[in-house]
């Protein structure tokens, strides 16, 4: 009992710190630990990680709002897509057996890693020339943020809004089905498709994850997937970790943020795929 609590607390501090820095929900870290290290049913892993996502989101959002890193309008606009996707996804969960969930989840992780790697090698952390599309103007999505690493205010434009909206629909679906915030998808939509800088993408993803997850969390709460002995120490650890991570993130160069993540995502993704095939490591 005490061991479980301590493990979840530590996992929480780690997942919260990393999750806040990268804008991808702690769920990506928590799910493998609950299923692989603790050997529990994927149902409880999904329940725990959905709480992890909400705790990371709410914990880091406090600092990101105060320091004006995130883009509230982009978040609100895209949340229409993610919340709809999340409802559909949560209703579909029971329809798939764990094997498919493991493979899907694993493939998702491997793909995010590949995506991060490509971005790093294109060396495009610097500001790009982006022309705002008509949707960005109509919905007032263009904004600016203060980068504590570069120590200056950075204005940015947003493009490919419809494409970003579609990716978000998929992100919501994945969140509902797998219990992850699918932050990688969200960062991909904003940083990749919509050409927002990495830090506001990541901070906005953090904010959005919470709402997407909350949409499906009530489903898991009432069907008993969220165990208090796992969820509470995890959430407490994450709230502390994400408060720390959201401050560290603002001082890190964007390049470092990508470098940290490539191996972690790849490792966890392959591990989950192997688990799906019955190979426990």
């Amino acid at each position, binding site marked *: 009992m005490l061991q479980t609590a301590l493990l979840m607390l530590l996992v929480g501090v780690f997942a919260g710190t990393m999750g806040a820095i990268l804008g991808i929900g702690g769920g990506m870290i928590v799910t493998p630990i609950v299923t692989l290290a603790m050997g529990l049913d994927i149902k409880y892993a999904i329940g725990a990680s959905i709480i992890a996502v909400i705790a990371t*989101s709410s914990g880091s959002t406090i600092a990101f709002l105060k320091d*004006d890193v995130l883009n509230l*309008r982009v978040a609100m606009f895209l949340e229409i897509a993610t919340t709809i996707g999340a409802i559909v996804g949560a209703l579909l969960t029971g329809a798939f057996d764990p094997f498919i969930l493991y493979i899907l989840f694993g493939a998702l992780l491997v793909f995010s890693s590949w995506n991060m790697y490509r971005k790093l090698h294109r060396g495009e952390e610097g500001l790009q020339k982006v022309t705002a599309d008509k949707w960005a103007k109509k919905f*007032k999505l263009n904004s600016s943020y203060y980068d504590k690493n570069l120590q200056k205010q950075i204005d940015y434009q947003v493009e490919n809004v419809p494409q970003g909206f579609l990716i978000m629909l998929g992100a919501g679906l994945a969140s509902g089905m797998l219990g992850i915030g699918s932050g990688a998808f969200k960062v991909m939509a904003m940083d990749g498709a919509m050409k927002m800088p990495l830090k506001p993408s990541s901070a906005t993803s953090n904010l959005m994850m919470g709402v997407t997850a909350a949409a499906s969390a009530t489903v898991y709460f009432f069907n008993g997937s969220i165990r208090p002995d796992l969820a509470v120490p995890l959430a407490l650890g994450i709230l502390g970790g994400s408060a720390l991570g959201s401050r560290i993130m603002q001082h890190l160069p964007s390049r470092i943020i990508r470098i940290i993540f490539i191996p972690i995502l790849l490792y966890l993704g392959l591990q989950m795929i192997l688990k799906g095939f019955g190979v426990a490591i």
Partner: protein
Amino acid sequence: MKETRKEMLEVEIIIGKIMRIGVLISALIMLLGFIMFLVTGHSGYPGDSFPTALLAIYHGILAFKPYALMMGGVYLLILTPILRVVISIYAFYKENDFLYVKITSLVLLILIISVIVGHK
């Protein structure tokens, strides 16, 4: 553009303050239940069971059962992002940004539908 910036800053400060209060209350309730659970070694419920219905959690909290407090705190935590959306509607309204009052209200509506779906 300038006005949009200033408006956003004000909106963000309002939402940030309320989020902080929400998260703090949820964390304190979880922490109280968690400490009681660790100290007494009892969850207040037989075996590995825990309450998931709101009424059962409410009664459990009144009886100071650790698992009820913990689940109650978790439930409040789940509500914090939803609270954030509600406050956003108010904040956008206060700044006369009616386009975003509509967008945020739509998000809230979808969230409410998902909560209703979740109760089934």
